[in-house]
């Protein structure tokens, strides 16, 4: 079945079984490797993307549901001109260790900051529940607060 949606601002059509996980389509059909496969069971968050601006775990999202929607992956988080505040903060705080989980965390963080522009530590604990095997949580917490500052500075 053909499914048409917007991926990082460009319309794409893919021919795939409608029940294929969107993650597989993004990585294997559309060849964008930034989004990672961790567990395949909606448990780790490595595959987090945005669908219509909301965080979605793409390993557990059938491609047919993406029809007509706006899908954003880590590759589409920044614009040509501006790095996303989350990316900027991540660089400033030198967050990644091995890096595998990081795109998912950054997409989850970017989605949260749209809804909660000034998250407390508790908001971070409750909303960002992805898994990092390298345990970069401490640096991520700092980076999330920094991203909020950067985002609020640019939107003022």
């Amino acid at each position, binding site marked *: 079945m053909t499914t048409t949606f917007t991926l990082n601002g460009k319309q794409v059509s893919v021919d795939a079984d409608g029940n294929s996980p969107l993650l597989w389509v993004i990585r294997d059909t559309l060849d964008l490797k930034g989004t990672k496969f961790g567990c395949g069971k*909606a*448990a780790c968050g490595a595959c987090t993307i945005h669908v219509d601006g*909301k965080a979605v775990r793409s*390993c557990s999202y*059938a491609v047919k549901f993406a029809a007509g929607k706006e899908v954003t992956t880590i590759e589409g988080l920044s614009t040509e001109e501006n790095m996303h505040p989350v990316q900027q903060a991540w660089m400033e705080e030198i967050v990644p260790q091995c890096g595998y989980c990081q795109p998912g965390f950054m997409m989850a963080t970017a989605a949260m900051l749209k809804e909660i522009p000034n998250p407390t530590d508790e908001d971070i604990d409750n909303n*960002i529940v992805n898994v990092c095997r390298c345990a970069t949580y401490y640096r991520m917490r700092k980076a999330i607060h920094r991203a909020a500052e950067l985002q609020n500075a640019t939107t003022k």
Partner: protein
Amino acid sequence: MKHLLTSLFILAFMGVCVAFTEVSPFGESNRSSEANLDEAPFDIMMKVLTHKRCVNCHPSGNRPRQGEDSHIHNFNVQRGADDHGLAGLQCSTCHQSENNDFSGVPGAPHWGLAPVEMAWAGKTRVEIATQMMDPARNGGKNLDEIVKHLTEDELVGWAWNPGIDHEGKPREPVPVAKDEFTAAVKAWAAAGAVIPEQ
């Protein structure tokens, strides 16, 4: 002889059907198992409503339950302001409008928690039924709307089609067939929606 046997068989079969229809309190023979023939509609209905497939998402408090053992939902999942999760961690981050057989994540339309005033966990069936009939605790529903919710809502209907879990094992469905449940709910409502003392 052959005709005689066939006739006897047909008569015997008709007798079974008549007997079956007569003992059915629903006036229609849509019972799925003979073992349930003596049960009151209320008992049949409450077997479903007290099952974990329903109660896991009618929790007391702000944490959904999951699994066959009704453990607290993993990942610190919480109710949120609109019963659909926190602002950055919505139910729809993982749950879509149908079961996902790749991940084992269950799904159905408007997946989310019942409002906290509809909490069922830890309550007796009489408490649950009383609460369900109280417009202050049932979202302002009248009896017809309750019957419609129980028998037609797609999220309620998921309890008969709960999909597979993360290990590929089928989740346990509610213990009464859907048509039997529907008939029981309607019979209970038609007879005045009486809630027994216990």
